[in-house]
């Protein structure tokens, strides 16, 4: 893990903030919750954010383990997005910020001028480890948030269950998504 002193952290936080501003990456303030339709489309996350999340889930939950299905062949990202619709505005905004800060964190966590999604697999794992073991509490919390939502997205997919010996629900899936998506 790279040593990040308080001073270097502040310096690179400033650089990251600048990059974010230059790239107009600030997520729009979220107002009303999105109207939910069928699962499988994005309601909360942008395509860019979804791509970051997809890369996170891949390294977080699967790595190079070939007995588990590729993340891209599942609806893991769409499921996280769907669940995020139940969060309040503050939580959703925080998670979107977390994704973008994580994406732009290699410069100040690994001293590499690349985004997370542009790193090779080894670099991506090193970044995850840097967040997991960071001396900064907020980074460790961020890692746990990413991990929890990655687990939610990936292991809710039926395609993953056979590989872990889970037989799944007893009740058949209703013809439509459950009542919760139609209540509003």
């Amino acid at each position, binding site marked *: 893990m790279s040593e990040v002193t308080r001073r270097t952290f502040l310096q690179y936080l400033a650089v990251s903030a600048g990059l974010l501003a230059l790239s107009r990456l600030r997520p729009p303030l979220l107002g*009303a*919750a999105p109207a939910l339709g069928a699962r499988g489309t994005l309601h909360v996350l942008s395509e860019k954010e979804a791509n970051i999340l997809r890369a996170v889930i891949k*390294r*977080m*939950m*699967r*790595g*190079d*383990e070939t*007995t*588990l299905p590729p993340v891209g062949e599942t609806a893991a990202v769409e*499921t996280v997005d*769907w*669940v995020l*619709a*139940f*969060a*309040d505005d503050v*939580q959703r905004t925080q998670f979107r910020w977390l994704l973008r800060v994580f994406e732009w964190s290699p410069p100040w966590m690994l001293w590499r001028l690349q985004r997370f999604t542009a790193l090779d697999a080894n670099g991506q*794992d090193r970044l*995850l480890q840097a967040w*997991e*073991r960071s001396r900064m*509490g907020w980074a*460790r*919390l961020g890692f*746990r948030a990413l*991990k*929890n939502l990655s*687990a*939610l*997205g*990936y*292991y*809710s997919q039926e395609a*993953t*269950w056979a*590989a*872990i*010996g*889970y*037989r*799944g*629900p*007893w*009740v058949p*899936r*209703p013809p439509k*998504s*459950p*009542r*919760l998506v139609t*209540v*509003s």
Partner: protein
Amino acid sequence: MIRTLRDIESDLELRSQVCVIGSGAGGAVVGKELAEAGLDVVVLEQGGYYTKEDFTQREEEMMPLLFEEMGQRATEDQSVVILQGKNVGGSTVHNLCYCFRTPPPIVEKWRREARIGWRYDDLVPSFERVETMLKVQPIPEAQVNTLNRKIREGCEKLGYHGVVAQHNRQNCVGSGFCILGCPFDAKQSMALTYIPAADRAGARIFANCAVEQLEVAGERVQRATGQVVDVYGRPRARFAVRSELFVLSAGAINSPQILLRSGVRGGHIGKHLHLHPSVLLAGLYDEDIHGYLGIPQSYYVDEFIDLEHNPDSGYVIMPIFGFPVLTASQLPGFGRAHAEIMRSYHRMVGILVLLHDQSEGGVRVDRKGRPLISYRLRPEEERLMAEGMRHCAEILFASGAREVLVPYFEAPLRLRPGSDLSVIEARGCRQGEIPLASTHPQGTLRMGEDPSWAVVDSNGRVHGFENLFVADMSVFPSSLGAPPQITTAALADRTAASIVAARGRWFPQTV
């Protein structure tokens, strides 16, 4: 009729004799008992109303529906996750059905320290009524599943005492999905027992109604006001309920939150939060366990708690198992190493230490009225939990585990048979270094006869208020040291009985 968002078209203005806020193990009981006594009762529940058709046994679909903050509610420092129900029936819809009466030594401790005005024997009629309603019965031997049998086997080899518990299930098919709501109506939750009975007795039950504030004038609460919210928490309308008497039953986080938002502050409101914090370990076996099948918790290890001799300390050990999402989020590490452990999911046994905690925390509210939860484990109790973790590892190895995982966030332990287990106590159970969870927050509006020590009196009435009661786990004067469902319901039954007995005080026209 249980009204939900579908039935609420516009702002609501209601009048009733009694307004019960919350519909879990406390509120449902009070609502039913007072309605059957002939009082005009309104029950308000912030969450939705779900029936067996809604329980899809899928984590990603049930967590947002059944749990506060989608199951992500936690202390401010995120070190303890707190699972609480948010639906008609409260946590009884997702709990795992352990049924234990209040331990008599704890009642004696409450009499001694809180000067509560009743004895264990006074509570027995309430226990009996509650247990009859919830159809409490011993768990049949045939329904002790493989996971629980493994833990019992380990305990028996080590000479540790445990019991097969009682539960409130009827005609259980053993699907094992209790924590996601029972789609077979086997779990006798409040939503299936007391709430329908309250409905039959004429109580008006409103789901999706989140109380924000009590309007207080002097020693009386005048109205409860709040928002009608949809399943995403979006406000759809406003409501106000004017009543002669109010009963707060929103749980040990939300009940003090409502009081604090209402400007009722000071004293012990929101203080003395006990969590029964728990930490879990996983054992990996060579044979298939399929821990998610069957009754999740039937065995209960009480070797390390002796309330008769020491009502202020100890812990119990329980079986536990999670579905894939929960398990994956709790297991240590990430990437390929994490995936390799997950491939042993069907050979896994979960076990937890649940602390009878003397440590305390509190509930405050932020500027927007949201709850801020603090909690700090005392060092001696961190050591006690670490001791419990070592015993858990012993139990798992004694029943044949080939590996035990201790999920520290950093450098988790992977122990093999013959490993020196003192390494667990050497690492300890320091808050923030290992996942901690709570399903039993309690004590934030504690009961006692002395207003300078307690928030509510022995009948649950808030000191200094003429017409405000509390009936939920908030009122426990200390950590209970046992699963709380029956105690909560029995105390609520007793509170309801005290209201009925003195009804002329609030409803002179009904006497």
